[in-house]
């Protein structure tokens, strides 16, 4: 049984050190962090690591099974697809799309969500009501459905799918920011800053934002996993990245018909999605436990 010490027995740590300490002793979160860093490194170094070009078709090795299988071909660690392309290289390049897009989507929704939420929380009144109702409406349409409609209107492409998912994830950041801002506005340190002449965006970014970052960091981590899942789902439905781009969801959808003859072309891309999403969810849970002073697991 792991005993995680609460803040009372750690008197001489700064809040940041305390969070790092709590995260470090959480083994599953550290493993998740390691896996994510490994994936990110693999994605960045893909041109150096990948044994083959992800688009090159080796016509004499169609549907070669992965390494260790009875009739595997040497040089193709995870086998090849129906056009003889190396699965390992394709998955590695696919990580670039999934991870980079997940990151870009979260940054987009975080930035705009925080700004809209801050306006709602600081202005109050009619502005707040309009913003909140709009977010409620967006939340009433199931996420994938809203994304599908946006993509249908903009046209199916990777960029449009990313834009659609960013819009879908936006309301969560808006609501969290608004609630946190309202709670902080009544605190004395905010009042002190206001008396000092700080107003508007300056008050928000310099004084309030650093104090409400904890729930936003947690939400960003969890949104990262949602973003990857949604992008993959759109790719799978043919509304995201278009073949031959090796985005993981697109890989899955193009190998659907091969499920009987070459199951590895289906299992591997899905496994990649699952591992990435699982790692960021575990890290998100760990961050929440570390950042929330109420939790003493």
């Amino acid at each position, binding site marked *: 049984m792991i005993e995680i010490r609460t803040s009372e027995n750690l008197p001489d740590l700064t809040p940041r050190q305390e969070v790092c300490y709590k995260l470090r002793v959480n083994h599953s979160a550290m493993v998740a962090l390691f896996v994510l860093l490994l994936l990110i490194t693999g994605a960045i170094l893909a041109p150096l690591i990948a044994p083959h070009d992800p688009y090159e078709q080796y016509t004499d090795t169609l549907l070669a099974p992965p390494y260790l299988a009875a009739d595997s071909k040497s040089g193709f660690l995870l086998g090849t697809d129906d056009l003889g392309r190396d699965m390992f290289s394709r998955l590695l390049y696919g990580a670039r799309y999934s991870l980079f897009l997940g990151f870009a989507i979260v940054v987009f929704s975080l930035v705009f969500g925080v700004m809209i939420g801050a306006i709602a929380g600081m202005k109050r009144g009619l502005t707040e009501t309009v913003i909140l109702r709009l977010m409620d409406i967006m939340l009433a349409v199931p996420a994938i*459905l809203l994304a599908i*409609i946006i993509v*249908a209107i903009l046209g199916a492409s990777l960029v449009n799918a990313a834009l659609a998912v960013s819009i879908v994830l936006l309301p969560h950041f808006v609501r969290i920011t608004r609630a946190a801002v309202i709670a902080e506005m009544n605190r004395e340190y905010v009042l002190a800053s206001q008396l000092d002449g700080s107003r508007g965006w300056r008050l928000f970014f310099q004084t309030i934002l650093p104090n409400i970052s904890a729930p936003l960091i947690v939400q960003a981590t969890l949104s990262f996993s949602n973003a990857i*899942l949604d992008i993959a*789902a759109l790719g*799978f439905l043919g509304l995201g990245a278009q073949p031959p781009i090796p985005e993981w969801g697109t890989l899955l959808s193009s190998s659907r018909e091969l499920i009987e003859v070459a199951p590895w072309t289906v299992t591997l891309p*899905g496994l990649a*999605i*699952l591992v990435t999403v699982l790692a960021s*969810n575990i890290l998100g849970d760990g961050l929440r436990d570390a950042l929330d002073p109420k939790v003493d697991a």
Partner: protein
Amino acid sequence: MPQLLLRRLLLIVPGFLGITALTFFLIRLAPGDPILLLAGEHGVSAERYEELQHQFGFDRPLFIQFTDYLWQLLNGNLGTSVVTQTPVLEEFGNLFPATLELAVIAMIIATIIAIPAGVLAAVKRNTVIDHSITAVSLVGYSMPIFWWALLLILLFSVNLGWMPVAGRLNFIYDIQSVTGFMLIDTLLAGDQDAFFDALHHLVLPAIVLATIPLAVITRMTRSSMLEVLKQDYIRTARAKGLSEFSVIFKHALRNALIPVITVIGLQISILMTGAILTETIFSWPGIGKWILEAVYRRDYPVVQGGVLLIAGLVILVNTAVDLLYVVINPALRQPK
């Protein structure tokens, strides 16, 4: 209480209006002229184009078109499918039972497994049992369900041959649709073989659709139980000498279920999202597959009407859950 009910019900109105406006204007943003799209490859003469524009009202200001659309909605007219020429509401009505049947079975599977699993994890906190349940539910929560569906098909349909790959019923059975629920219709027809065949078709899609709610409800039950087990009244119940069974199921679970029931209700949005993916993979003839196909075919009246109906459903269920929360939570019922 009646005041709260009224306020909550009144909030539905701007919600519906907002959704209507959102879908209406979003669809109008779509590229491509709807009439040229309708005409297809044959094209259309200039006069006929004008005539059609007038007939559909596209030559009038956008705002007038919108108020017109609202008026039509109030009269129960959600438009007609461009492809099949059937009213949208009628198509929805024909397909919705299939989705509802799948969703209900999925929720039953999820709840039956999740609540005991969550209770067990909380009671056996920090043991191997707890860690296993928590880990499995985390995996379920992170699962790309379209991939999960393919894996289940690979194992149970392709390799073992136990389950059918697609559809609701084998074509050798001819069952008259009475309720639209295949399990009930086959029983009404008195055809036992057809009933088991329908059940057979339901298993895999229902498991896939149940996966995410199962994980969410398990996690919620566990954390809610942990919270309740810390309370003084649980210590009192134990001190009274009640059996552990009675403490857990009569005293703790009843109180822990309040947030869990809310979470179960809120799964409707997840179910609808899941329905789009699940129905597409299993060729399940429900509204998820219907709306996705409408998007592919650019059948805008169906997309617009379908989104409106689904979002309306989500709003209604969420409101009902909010109200239910007040009804089952005595602490919220006291007059202020």
